């Protein structure tokens, strides 16, 4: 039924199945499904072969949540991050951050997301990618503007900039935008577009984000289509995509983007056709093993493994293969070694959870997910937003006034003066209690410093793990600073 509009009166479809519990079932399925698949796929994210998992204390194939450890901190300051069963990575962390930025009308407070959520996320990020990290660093600068968060970063040996940031870091967090706008495709598209552009400037990343959001939004609506019809409709929608230049923020962004050597519209058309043909290839290969589809999409190649478009199409392929059974989908996604298992898994898990509903998600996984209650609260809020019944966003912490310095978490972390079981205060997350404090000496041959890690359970519902490094050398023994070279004096006399 087409929408009827008279002046400012919009006639909606007759209300039938909009009971709150029915919508919640799907929204909670999408959120929990994404978080579980992320947690299950995180251990295999960087494994290329089964033996790589042994070093982390795991066995191939991964079929259940287990405790494992991850080496982080680079080659010289390696530390061990002990990860508990059900802990999730940056995909779910940023999904929750974005949910906190969603207004009751389904729009996103992008400025809050960029300058608050991203800024403080850097302190507790787990398994973060290079692009999102660089974007978050840049966004947290005082003078930054979320509408044009231009930055430069290094990826391997390559120097890249914002316009070249085409990874899946935008798509991976986009589910709240889709869930909050289940009945409003236009708002979902524009908000997903704008939020993706906060961290990524390449059309691949933005396309990946909007296509994932739209696929998830369509799956939320129910079982009125076959898989083939769903894909055919999605492809038609993809082919019709244009940048939403009616929006003033997007218009400003496009003007700034086009100040570079290339024109965005041309590239956009090119990558729209790329993702369309990728979806086509994924359909053609549906009868082949999933690994073949991943290979054709470039999901095993280091240069394209994390591409925004390839990851989303891989997630669609994973969903089309195993979408009838969440358990099989999550396990399959986690065990395709060499691919971006957690991100592809999280996106496919969200789609599957939205399609099947929360009831089809194994309780043995859901029950041990970190922040289970908070994820449910987020689902409750997004359900109300999608029905346009939310009053205000109550997912954020209520932050009290600044306490004395010993109580401030970030200062205490910097000083490495953290005590177990003690309450601390965070500028964005409010009050929380340290539930586990760990300390490790780091250094290749001899200890060069100490890393303290503190897991903090915040009263508002989320648990975050913070870490800080402090050099063991006393300040005087540190390498002397090179004296500042004086600028040559200009001689004006002749």
């Amino acid at each position, binding site marked *: 039924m087409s929408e009827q509009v*008279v*002046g*400012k009166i919009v*006639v909606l479809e007759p209300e039938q199945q909009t009971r709150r519990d029915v919508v919640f079932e799907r929204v909670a399925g999408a959120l929990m499904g994404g978080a579980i698949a992320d947690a299950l796929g995180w251990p295999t994210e960087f494994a290329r072969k089964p033996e790589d998992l042994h070093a982390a204390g795991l066995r191939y194939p991964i079929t259940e949540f287990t405790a494992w450890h991850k080496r982080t901190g680079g080659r010289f300051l390696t530390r061990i991050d002990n990860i508990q069963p059900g802990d999730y990575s940056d995909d779910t962390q940023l999904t929750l951050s974005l949910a906190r930025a969603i207004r009751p009308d389904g729009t996103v407070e992008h400025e809050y997301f960029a300058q608050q959520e991203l800024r403080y996320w850097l302190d507790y990020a787990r398994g973060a990618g290079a692009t999102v990290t660089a974007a978050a660093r840049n966004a947290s600068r005082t003078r930054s503007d979320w509408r044009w968060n231009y930055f430069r970063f290094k990826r391997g040996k390559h120097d890249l900039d914002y316009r070249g940031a085409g990874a899946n870091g935008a798509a991976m967090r986009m589910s709240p935008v889709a869930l909050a706008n289940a009945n409003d495709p236009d708002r979902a598209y524009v908000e997903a577009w704008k939020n993706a552009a906060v961290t990524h400037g390449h059309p691949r990343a933005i396309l990946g984000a909007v296509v994932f959001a739209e696929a998830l939004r369509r799956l939320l609506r129910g079982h009125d289509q076959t898989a083939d019809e769903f894909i055919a409709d999605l492809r038609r929608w993809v082919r019709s995509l244009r940048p939403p230049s009616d929006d003033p923020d997007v218009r400003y962004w496009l003007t700034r983007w086009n100040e570079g050597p290339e024109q965005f519209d041309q590239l956009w058309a090119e990558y729209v056709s790329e993702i369309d043909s990728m979806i086509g290839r994924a359909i053609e290969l549906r009868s082949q093993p999933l690994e073949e589809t991943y290979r054709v999409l470039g999901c095993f190649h280091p240069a394209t493994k994390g591409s925004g478009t390839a990851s989303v199409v891989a997630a669609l392929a994973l969903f089309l293969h195993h979408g009838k059974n969440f358990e099989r989908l999550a396990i399959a996604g986690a065990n395709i070694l060499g691919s971006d298992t957690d991100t592809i898994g999280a996106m496919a898990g969200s789609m599957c959870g939205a399609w099947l509903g929360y009831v089809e998600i194994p309780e043995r996984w859901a029950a041990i997910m970190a922040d289970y209650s908070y994820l449910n609260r987020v689902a409750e809020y997004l359900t109300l937003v999608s029905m346009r*019944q939310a*009053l205000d966003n109550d997912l954020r912490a209520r932050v009290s006034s600044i306490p004395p310095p010993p109580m401030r978490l970030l200062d205490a972390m910097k000083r490495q003066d953290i005590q177990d079981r003690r309450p601390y205060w965070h500028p964005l997350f409010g009050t929380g209690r340290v539930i586990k404090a760990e300390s490790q000496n780091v250094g290749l041959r001899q200890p060069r410093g100490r890393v303290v890690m503190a897991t903090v359970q915040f009263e508002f519902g989320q648990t975050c793990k913070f870490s800080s490094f402090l050099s063991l050398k006393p300040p005087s023994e540190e390498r002397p600073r090179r004296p500042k070279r004086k600028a040559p004096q200009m001689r004006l006399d002749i």
Partner: protein
Amino acid sequence: MTLQLKANSDAIRDALRRHGRYELFHWTPAARLPSVLEQGLLCRRELEARTVAYDAHGYGRAGKEEDFAGFVCVSFLPSWGMMRRETGPLAVIEMPSTIAGIDRSFYCPDNTARNDYEFDEVSTWTELEHFEALFAGPNEWKLSNLQAEVWIPDGIPVDFFRTVYFRSDEDLQDALRACEPLAANLPRELNFRVKMTHFPDPDYEKPDDLDWEEIPIR
């Protein structure tokens, strides 16, 4: 019409969230809708002052409606009992429940028209404890009585209207035609929607005496 919030409107808002109640309703004959969309929901006194015609309802004992003439009644469920008396098409207007935090609003845990309630007493029930009495428990979604009412002083501007519900598509289309001249000048976007469950079943006949054994279990 100037609106001011109660000093404890935040607490009311928290309570609404705790009880999971996000909307309040007011029903009106669909024929009155153009006037309502033009002027807002006005109390009887305001309607008279602006010489707007209205249908007078009896309200408990004779003359009781005069006491409440400065207030508009809204409820958490559209009032089927009152609607059953109407013969023409009806419209149910949905508004955010936060209007319960408007200054001087008061709360009655039952149908205010009942003889137990007099204006002088009910109009003092403006505090959080009175608001909580509308619900079956501190965290309950259920109301203590389905006819619980919230009374808003003076009126409710059109800005607060979110959706107008109709019993059938025919009623909706009739209302749409009648409201068309105003549609472009509304202060914000407004939804029209058919939702049968907001209206009493027209074929329903109240049995004289319920015989539970005769009602088949489905």
